[in-house]
């Protein structure tokens, strides 16, 4: 319990740090939001008025504290450009991105785990070699290329699936999934390869451990040896990487949302950066950072669940 308490303190500290750095970055760098709001060459008075209205000339630290204060009440401020609350924007845009990330993670882990286990078990076999070659190729395809190829093949040439658009799950579940298939595949392809190769490597080294020899010598069936004995000790780096991949997935969704014209968080980030709508950017970063931190928190707990040694080391601490 003390451990979890410590962890939460740590996470809150990181959140502060990340948001503050973002704030600093957004405010210190040139090209203030007035340019975006009023256009280049707007007359000086208008600029001056705008800056005062938005408190842009206050010291950064004061503005940060103000912003934090508002954050505590759930107020992320209003978009400078669209004049709507940032929280509204986020709640509109977030579901699509979350769904996309969730589907991609499920798909990539769902494919990578069995494939990784199989290719480690039959290391160097025909199956392993072809799975690895394909995985290597996938590693070398950036998702924007893969997305374009998918659109070209399945939408334009074969006409099987729509190339663009997003339908909320609540409106029409079937159509929702139909439209999510291509984006999900494009986003998951690289991850599958990373996860599979990682799990394979770890499985192979686990399978060479003495305790696997012991399990075999006990006469346990292969299935049990692989799933009960080898998988769990091999899954730690997979877990770690799956956690950091959240960051990559967010980057990925930016590109994928652009290709498939999905109005999600990724496209919101790009738009708001373009327009220097800094409160929106800041809001997005908060969401991303919270998500990232939460995922890492969950993963940290999962470590303890998976590995009794960590559990006990923590219990002592």
């Amino acid at each position, binding site marked *: 319990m003390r451990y979890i308490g410590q962890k939460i303190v740590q996470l809150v500290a990181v959140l502060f740090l990340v948001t503050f750095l973002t704030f600093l970055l957004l405010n210190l760098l040139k090209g203030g939001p007035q340019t975006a709001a009023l256009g280049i060459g707007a007359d000086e008075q208008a600029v001056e008025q705008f800056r005062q209205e938005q408190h842009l000339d206050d010291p950064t630290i004061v503005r940060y504290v103000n912003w934090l204060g508002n954050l505590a009440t759930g107020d992320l401020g209003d978009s400078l450009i669209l004049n709507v609350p940032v929280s509204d924007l986020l709640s509109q845009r977030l579901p699509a991105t979350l769904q996309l990330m969730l589907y991609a993670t499920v798909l990539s882990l769902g494919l990578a785990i069995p494939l990784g286990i199989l290719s480690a078990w039959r290391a160097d076999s025909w199956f392993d070699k072809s799975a690895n070659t394909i995985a290597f190729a996938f590693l070398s395809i950036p998702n924007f290329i893969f997305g374009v190829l998918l659109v070209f093949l399945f939408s334009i040439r074969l006409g099987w699936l729509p190339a663009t658009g997003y339908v909320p799950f609540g409106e029409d579940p079937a159509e929702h999934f139909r439209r999510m298939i291509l984006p999900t595949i494009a986003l998951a392809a690289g991850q599958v390869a990373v996860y599979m190769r990682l799990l394979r490597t770890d499985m192979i080294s686990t399978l060479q451990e003495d305790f696997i020899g012991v399990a075999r010598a006990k006469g*346990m*069936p292969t299935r049990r040896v692989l799933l009960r004995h080898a998988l769990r000790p091999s899954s730690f780096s997979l877990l770690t990487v799956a956690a950091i991949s959240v960051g990559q997935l967010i980057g990925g969704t930016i590109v994928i949302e652009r290709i498939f014209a999905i109005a999600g968080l990724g496209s919101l980030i790009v738009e708001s950066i373009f327009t220097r709508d800094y409160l929106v950017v800041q809001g997005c970063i908060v969401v991303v950072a919270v998500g990232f931190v939460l995922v890492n928190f969950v993963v940290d707990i999962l470590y303890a669940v998976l590995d009794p040694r960590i559990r006990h080391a923590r219990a002592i601490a």
Partner: protein
Amino acid sequence: MARKQVTLTRSEVDTSRPLLEVEDLRTHFLTESGTVRAVDGVSFALERGRTLGVVGESGSGKTILSRSIMGLLPTRNVVRTGSAKYEGTEVAGLAAGALRGLWGTEMAMVFQDPMTSLNPVMKVGNQITESLRHHLDMDKGEARETAIALLRSVGIPEPVQRVKEYPHQLSGGMRQRVMIAIALACGPRLLFADEPTTALDVTVQAQILDLLQAQQTERHMAMVLITHDLGVVAGRADDIAVMYAGKVVEKAPTSVLFSSTRHPYTEALLKSIPKLEHTSHTRLEVIPGRPPDLVSPPDGCNFSPRCAYAQPKCFVEEPVLETGPGGDHEFACWYPVGTPQGAEALARNQADAAVTEEVA
């Protein structure tokens, strides 16, 4: 994978035959640098309830021999020939799937390093009960009771608590006891103990060896005790086979082997060990050189380049393992220790060495 498994029905077994008969077993690994002859023509028979000590240095093939008999080696790039009959049934060369029925129930193995031999993320109890449940179809409670009884019998205090613990909570000696409990769980008739005490401290080593011996007697189980330490097998094995470069070079009942050593390698090995009863700074007799390359072993006798007795014949013709005049003492040497030929060979080499020294 539904593959036909070897099953044994106790009533069919011919108890007049040895439990394990190994005949000209060879295990070669195909590697980039050539064929490694890890085990190169080993034959022996093991009676029920007896202990065979297999002694050799690293690279002598002693570990590969045991895994080869059990069928635990990978199949890729491994060539296994020869025969190993367990209870009269041929087991050499069978696929793992076919042997699985024998593993744990008929033959079991205790591995060298207790620190790495237990699954770190599985409770000790489950590691014992899983084979009970799988092989003997016990239900959960029954398996647990049996596991506790097993832990108690291998000398683990508070077994009821221990079954709920993880390996890292146990000391090295305790882990090796758990390993033994796992191996004994389904009542095997043949136990391979592969350097069971090498990773342990001497004071714990004695405990574990005693335990193995006690369990063996109690269960009337045959044991192959593999070690690099002649001291470990001296008081505990019925017979000893000394291996060098993939071959058995000498095999005899323990007392015979020590009292009338025949192979120069065995003799040299015995002499090179520092002994407690010698006064300090006693000069050790060394075996010059290093063990041969198993890819391209020397012509003739493998030991000839390092042998104090070696004669021209030894460098050309390979001696085979033959029974000496004593009856059950086998050795592979042209000029055995303790025979007139041997004494003569040694004297000749020593004279030559003296001459060379003088010339120099």
